[in-house]
C-alpha cells in the first residue's frame, strides 16, 4: 500500500514541553570495576582459564597433603621407579618422589613467573607511560637508560649474579625483573606517545587533572590490552627463561626444584622414564593455556569496543 491516502492529523501534541520532573539514577550505578568484571566473566574461555589457574594454584598449595614425601626426601629403594601405589607419579634417578617434586616445582615456578611478569609489566607500563607523557628531558633520559640496558649482555650478567647467589629463587626474581622490563617499556612508550596526543588527554589537562593521575587514569588503561598480553606472555616466557638458566646450570639449583629443572632432567630420559618429562610438561602446558585464555578474556573485557561488551 503505497498510495498517498488521506490520514488523520496526527495526535502528536506539537506544543508539548519536556517534563521538568527531575530524573535520577534509580538503581545502583555500576562501577567501572564491576562492569569490567561482568564483561570478563561473560567470556567462557576466560572463566575456563581462571578455573585451570585456580586448580594449578590449589595443587601447588595443597598437593603436599596427598603425599607422605617431601620434595627432598630420597627413597633409595626406588630409583627411577615408574608410577606405583607407593609413588603415584614415580621417582627420579635420585629417588625423589615425582609428585612431591611437581608440587614444589610448580609452586616455585608460579611464584617466580607471576612475580617477575607482574613486576616487569608494572615497571614498564609506568616508566614507558610517564616518559611519554612528560616528554622533554625526562623522556630523553629514560629512553637513554632503556637503550643502554637493552644493549648490555644481560643474560651474562644474569647468569653471573644468580650463580653468585647460589641459585636463590628470590635473587632470581630480582635479577630477572631488573633485566626484563626495558623492551616492554619501549613498546609502551611508543604506544603512549600516540595516546598523549588524544583529545581526552588534553581535556583532562585542561580540567586541571594532575600529571600522575593522567598517566594512571588515561594512558595506562588505554594500553591495557598490550599490558595484559605482556603479562601473560611474560609468565610463560619467565618459566622458559628460568628453564634455560637451569639448563646451563645458573637457575634454580638442586636440591631446590622448579618446573624448569624438572623438564630439563626429564628430557634426557623421555623414552626410558617418560613420567619424569610428561608430568612437568603437562603442568607447563596447563599454565600456558590458562594464561592465554585469561589474557584473551581480559583483553576483550578491557576493550569497550569489543563485542563481548554487549550492553555493558
Amino acid at each position, binding site marked *: 500500500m503505497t498510495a498517498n491516502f488521506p*490520514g488523520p492529523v496526527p495526535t502528536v501534541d506539537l506544543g508539548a514541553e519536556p517534563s521538568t520532573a527531575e530524573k535520577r539514577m534509580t538503581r545502583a550505578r555500576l562501577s567501572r570495576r564491576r562492569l569490567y568484571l561482568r564483561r570478563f566473566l561473560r567470556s567462557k574461555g576466560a572463566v575456563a582459564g581462571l578455573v585451570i589457574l585456580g586448580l594449578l594454584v590449589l595443587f601447588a598449595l595443597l598437593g603436599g597433603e596427598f603425599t607422605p614425601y617431601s620434595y627432598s626426601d630420597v627413597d633409595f629403594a626406588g630409583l627411577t621407579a615408574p608410577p606405583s601405589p607407593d609413588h603415584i607419579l614415580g621417582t627420579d634417578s635420585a629417588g625423589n618422589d615425582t609428585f612431591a617434586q611437581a608440587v614444589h616445582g610448580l609452586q616455585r615456578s608460579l611464584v617466580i613467573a607471576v612475580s617477575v611478569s607482574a613486576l616487569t609489566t608494572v615497571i614498564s607500563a609506568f616508566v614507558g607511560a610517564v616518559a611519554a607523557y612528560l616528554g622533554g628531558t625526562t623522556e630523553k633520559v629514560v629512553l637513554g637508560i632503556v637503550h643502554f640496558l637493552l644493549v648490555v649482555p644481560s643474560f651474562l650478567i644474569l647468569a653471573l649474579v644468580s650463580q653468585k647467589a647460589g641459585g636463590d629463587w628470590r635473587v632470581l626474581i630480582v635479577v630477572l625483573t631488573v633485566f626484563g622490563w626495558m623492551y616492554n617499556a619501549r613498546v609502551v612508550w611508543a604506544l603512549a606517545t600516540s595516546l598523549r596526543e588524544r583529545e581526552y588527554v588534553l581535556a583532562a589537562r585542561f580540567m586541571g587533572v594532575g600529571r600522575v593521575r593522567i598517566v594512571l587514569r588515561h594512558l595506562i588503561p588505554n594500553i591495557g590490552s598490550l599490558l595484559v598480553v605482556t603479562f601473560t606472555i611474560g609468565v610463560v616466557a619467565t618459566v622458559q627463561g628460568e628453564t634455560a638458566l637451569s639448563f646451563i646450570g645458573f637457575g634454580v639449583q638442586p636440591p631446590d626444584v622448579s618446573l624448569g629443572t624438572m623438564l630439563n632432567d626429564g628430557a634426557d630420559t623421555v623414552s626410558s622414564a617418560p613420567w619424569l618429562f610428561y608430568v612437568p610438561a603437562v603442568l607447563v602446558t596447563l599454565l600456558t593455556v590458562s594464561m592465554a585464555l585469561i589474557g584473551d578474556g581480559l583483553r576483550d573485557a578491557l576493550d569497550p569496543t569489543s563485542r563481548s561488551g554487549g550492553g555493558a
Partner: protein
Amino acid sequence: MTPAAEADPVLSVRDLEVSFPSEAGRVHAVRGVGFDLYPGRTLGIVGESGSGKSVTSMAVMGLLPDYAAVRGSVTLGTRELLGLDDRQMSEIRGRELGMVFQDPLAALTPIFTVGRQVVEALQIHQDLDRNAAWKRAVELLDLVGIPNAAARARSFPHEFSGGMRQRVVIAMAIANGPRVLVADEPTTALDVTVQAQILDVLQLARAETGAALILITHDLGVVAGTADDVLVMYAGRPVERAPVGELFARPRMPYTIGLLGAVPRVDSAERRPLLPITGNPPLLVDLPAGCPFEPRCPISVAECAVEEPVLTPVSPDGEHAAACIRAGHIADGRVDGAAIYPVPRAPVAPAAAIPRERRPAVLELDGVSKTFPLLKGTLLKRRVGSVYAISGVGFDIREGETLGLVGESGCGKTTTLLEVMNLRAPEQGSIRVTGVDVSDLADRRQERALRRKLQMVFQDPMGALDPRLTIFDILAEPLRAVGEANRETIGRRVDELMELVGLDPEHSDRFPTAFSGGQRQRIGIARALATNPSLVVLDEPVSALDVSIQAGIINLLNDLKAELGLSYLFVAHDLAVVRHISDRVAVMYLGRIVEIGTVDEVFDDPRHPYSHALLSAIPVTDPQVERTRERVVLRGDLPSPTDSSPGCRFVSRCPLHPALDATQRARCVAETPELTGAGGSDHLNACHFR
C-alpha cells in the same frame, strides 16, 4: 522542461541493491536506488552519513569489494555495467567514468609527480606518445586552475595544498573526456573559500567535457548551488527526488523538510531555534517493515509501520516524487496546515537585557602572540625561522555573550583557543580570565581555581571521551579535579548534568561507545558544564555531526547559554552555524584579527575585503539566492605565516588591492593596518581603505 525529451540518459540505475556481510547480520546499505542521468546535467545526492550515498557511487564505478552482494542494473549508454569483470571495468573507469574522491591525497600516488600521474591516466586509455601526453597533461592542469602549470606539473602531491590536490584529481578524472563524472563529497575536507573554487572547477570540467555529473554531498547549500536534480537518500533508499528549485521550494517528505529546517541560514539575521530531527538513523541490519523514517517522524500514522512507501510521483509532470504515504497532505512544509516539526521555544537570556558595556568581561585578550619554531633537517633539527601562528590578537567576551572566531584552517583559531586554555602567560600580550591575569597565577591551587571557570568542548566527540571510562567517571573527572571527593555529591551532580543535556541518567554506567555521535557530544558538553564555568571554549563542536543531529546540539548550546548565563568562545568553519549562535564575531586571517563586530554587522556589512570574500563563499540553502548572488572567489591558498615583515598580510590575495592606485598599493605592502572602526563604533576592521 523534461530533459528526457532532449536526449537519452547516459547512465541509468535501476533497483540497485547492495548488501555487506557483517558480524551482526547483513547490512543492506543500498535498497533500491534508481535514477536517470542526462548528458550535461548534475544530479545531487544528499543524505546523512551512512545513508548509502558512497556505496551507490562505488557500485556505479564497480569499486565495491568482492564480498559485497550487488543486484539491479547500471547501464552506461546501452552497456550493462553490473557483472563486468575487473579488467572490463577498469577499461571503462577512467575513460567513460571519472571519479573525484573526498580525500585527494588518497587518490594520488605520493612518489610520482602530479604531471606524471596525469600522463599515466592519459596513456592508459589513449595512444599518445610521451611528449604529446605531457603537453596534454599541462593543458589539463592549466584548465583546472593550477597556476604556472608547466612548472608545477613536476611537483609532488605533498607539495600541493588540499585544494590544489583536488584540482589535480579533477584533471585526472576528465583526462579522457568521460561521459559521467562522479564526485563523492569533493569539498568536505576543504575550507569554504577553497570549496567555492573547487565547485567552480567541477562545473567548468563538466562543461568542458559535456559529461554528466553525480555530486554526492551532505551539504544542502552545495546542492542548492550546483545541482539540477536532487535525490534525497535515507537508510539506503531514495525518499525524495525533484528538480532542485522544486525540492527546496516544495519539499514533500518529512525527512527532507526536517533537513531543510535543521540547517541555519547564513543570510538571515533571524534567530529562530533550528528544527532538530529527534533520534538517529536506523541500523541497516534487519530493518523493520514500514517507513524507515517512522521512528523519527513527527507525523507518522499507524499505516506507516505496515509497508515501506516507495518513490511515487507527486507533481503532475512526474518530475517530483516522494516516498511518504502522507505526501498528498504535505504542502509548504506543513501537513494539512499544521507544522510538522514542533518549533522549540526560543530561549531568552537574562543578560541580554543589560547593555554590553555594563556586563563584566569573562575573557580579555590583548596583543597575544605565539610563534612556533620552524625546524628543518631530518636527523638534527635546527631552527631556520618562525611560524607566526598568531600575532597581536585582542578581543574581549562579556558575560552571557558568544564570540565566534572564523577563518580558514591554519589561520590561528585553534592556537588562540589553546593559548587561552593553557593558562600560561603568553609570549607577548596578556590574557585575563574573569578578571584574573593568567601571568599572576602563583601555584597549581590558584590555577585549579581558575580552571573551574573555564572549560572546553572538543571537535571529535569520540576522541574527547576516554573509551575506557564510563560516562559517570567521565563526568566526575572535572569535579574530582577541582577537589570534590564526596561520592554522594558527585553522583547527584552527574545525574543533574545528564538531565541538563537531555540524556537519561540511567545510562551513566555505560561506556562512550554505547552512544551515538550526537549523544557523545552532549556528554562532552555536560562535562564542560560540571564545574559551573563562566566561559566555555568550543572548538568545532558540531562539525563532526550530521545536520539533523547538529541542530539539536546548537539548540542545546543556545538553551544552556540562556539558562546558565554562560559565555562561549566558539570556533567553527561553518559560518552559518557561527551566525546562528554568536553575538559577536571575529574574522582571522594569517594569525591576525582582520575584522570584529556584532554578528549582524559583520555578516550583513563586511568591511574588510577578506571577510567579504569569505562570507560570499558560503553556499546558501536556497537555489534562487544561490544562483543569482554575486560571489567573490579568492585566488590561491592561504600563504604560510613565516613572514613577519610589516604590511597587510592579505595583500597577495586581496581583490581590492589591484584596483588601488600605486601609492595606495605601496601603503598596503609597507604598513601593517591596525584594527580601526568608523567613529565610536565597535565594528572594527584592519584594512587601510575600508
